[in-house]
């Protein structure tokens, strides 16, 4: 049973110009209760890797540079 790749639009977006993950910041990844954010190997910036979000907002609130925006997941909007 091979696995398919089903795309979803993710609710949390990171402004790469503002994100300072390349300077060692991992705050949003550290605080997320659902553990769905990661620093991308490709861009060196934070991004939402898993679409499993409670739209609770610690990531946005605790980001030191205001790079994170939490939107409501599409199915609920």
């Amino acid at each position, binding site marked *: 049973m091979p696995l398919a790749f089903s795309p979803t639009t993710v609710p949390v977006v990171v402004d790469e110009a503002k994100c300072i993950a390349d300077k060692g910041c991992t705050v949003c990844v550290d605080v997320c209760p659902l553990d769905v954010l990661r620093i991308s190997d490709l861009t060196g910036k934070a991004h939402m890797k898993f679409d499993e979000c409670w739209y609770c907002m610690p990531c946005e609130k605790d980001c030191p540079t205001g790079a994170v925006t939490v939107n*409501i997941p599409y199915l609920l909007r």
Partner: protein
Amino acid sequence: MDNFVEGLSEVTCDVLVIGGGTAGPMAALKAKQKNPALNVVLLEKANVKRSGAICMGMDGLNNAVVPGYATPEQYTKEITIANDGIVDQAPVFKYASRCYDIIQELDRFGIRFQKNANGDFDLKKVHHLGTYVLPMPNGDTVKKALYRQIKRERILVSNRFMATRLLTASDGRIAGATAVNTRTAEFLVLRAKTVILCMGAAGRLGLPHSGYLFGTYENPTNSGDGYAMAYHAGAALANLECYQINPLIKDYNGPACAYVAGPFGAYTANSEGNRFIESDYWSGQMMQEFYNELQSGKGPVFLKLNHLHADTVGEIEEILHKVERPSRGRFHQARGTDYREKMIEMHISEIGFCSGHSASGVFVDEFARTTVPGLYAAGDMASVPHNYMLGAFTNGAVAGEHAAEVALETDLPDFDSEFVKAERKRVLAPTRREDGIPPNQLEYKTRRLVNDYLQPPKVTARMRIGQARLAEVRDDLETALVARNAHELMRSLEVSSILDCADMAAHASLFRTESRWGLYHNRVDYPKKDDDNWFCHTLLRKVDGRLVSEKRPIQPYIVPIENEERTAYDRLRVSNQA
């Protein structure tokens, strides 16, 4: 991150607290304060800084018993009536007597509660009978304040470890737990003299109407692991058929919220804008009226604020859109909903287990002891009914203190290394498969079946079909579940807890052949409350690998309830309505 790392370590401590949301940090703090020489470990699936129901903060204490407003006797009476009499009053009374100390302590931690001009706590009436709601205008400080205390007391925190099973010794005492790292899949054995379970509600049992797996009322990290672990360790679980179902904003799945907006004059209304319930306090009886109105020609149901002054609505928004569920404002904005203009559509939540809001939890006595020696439980997953956030703090404190005392008199129990070996194999099985069914599909199917077959109104034949279908999913879980990385492994283990909870929900619901607690246990083919046969608790436990339910008598009341008071919550419908 997320790649598999082979690893097996062992940690030994005196008191192990599992779950660092609300009850957990308080339990760890109190255990350490009781005896600073003790080695206290706080294990958390997420990060204690921002974990649990209160990860962003809280709008208020829903059940504060403050001198001048209420007495422990009054509170015990209110909760006994609200829970249809099925209450052991000792733990409720203990909470009610102790919680004022805890409020003052939290105030000293820097969590500020609403006070009047004289500097006294300023409570609001939301319950049917008494006054217990204490607003927290700076409720966003809760987690930070707790975290400061944890650091100050040098409690050892282990983040991103998910507990999977409890260890018991040959004499049946608790001996520790097993856990797995959620980012590497490394396996951890924790040996302890006493263990306190604070893993929150079983919030991912039913599927929200949106179909979004994580759009639950509860913080979705609370997937019922605590219930499953207690069950497999042989502990008794009480009244699981008394589900949690909450009135929420349609699609948003945040509280609507009667506790915040109610004291300002907002209320729950039908589509004609009329009030149909006397009290917005969440009880099964209230939920039944809510459900009836929702299904009726006057449905759906709304939160009504548009009759209030614009400034008042502004004040409510200031709380609702900032503290507890701050993305709420964005939800409304995207739909162009303004509280000042329109009523806001409401709906009922998915089902779950929770004693914080309802009465389904691991059985505990007034010392937070479960039926397994050395094992404690506190917060939403322990059976003290309607205990909310202050109950989590207070009973967490009770558990921490008692567990510290017992740990002092106990030698480190032995544990069964064969059990640990088998558990490691079970945990890692989805990582050993190359191919199969991913956890998100198994979870969706399980929770869809919960909605189709187990949620009220409950029907015997339907629940039996549900059991058979869930058994098929269990076969898939045991033979085909595949996890490609450590994150998916965490989700896989969560599905296993969800499935255990679904089996328990069905079993407990079938056992109680009457209707009780309004919508929570509305059994259509047994529509009447049957006090002669069912004025009792039900306890569910694992016996020889199977689910077994039994009745347990209610302990004699400490605070007597008059006959006419008993039915106060049965008369919630506004009387000039049909």
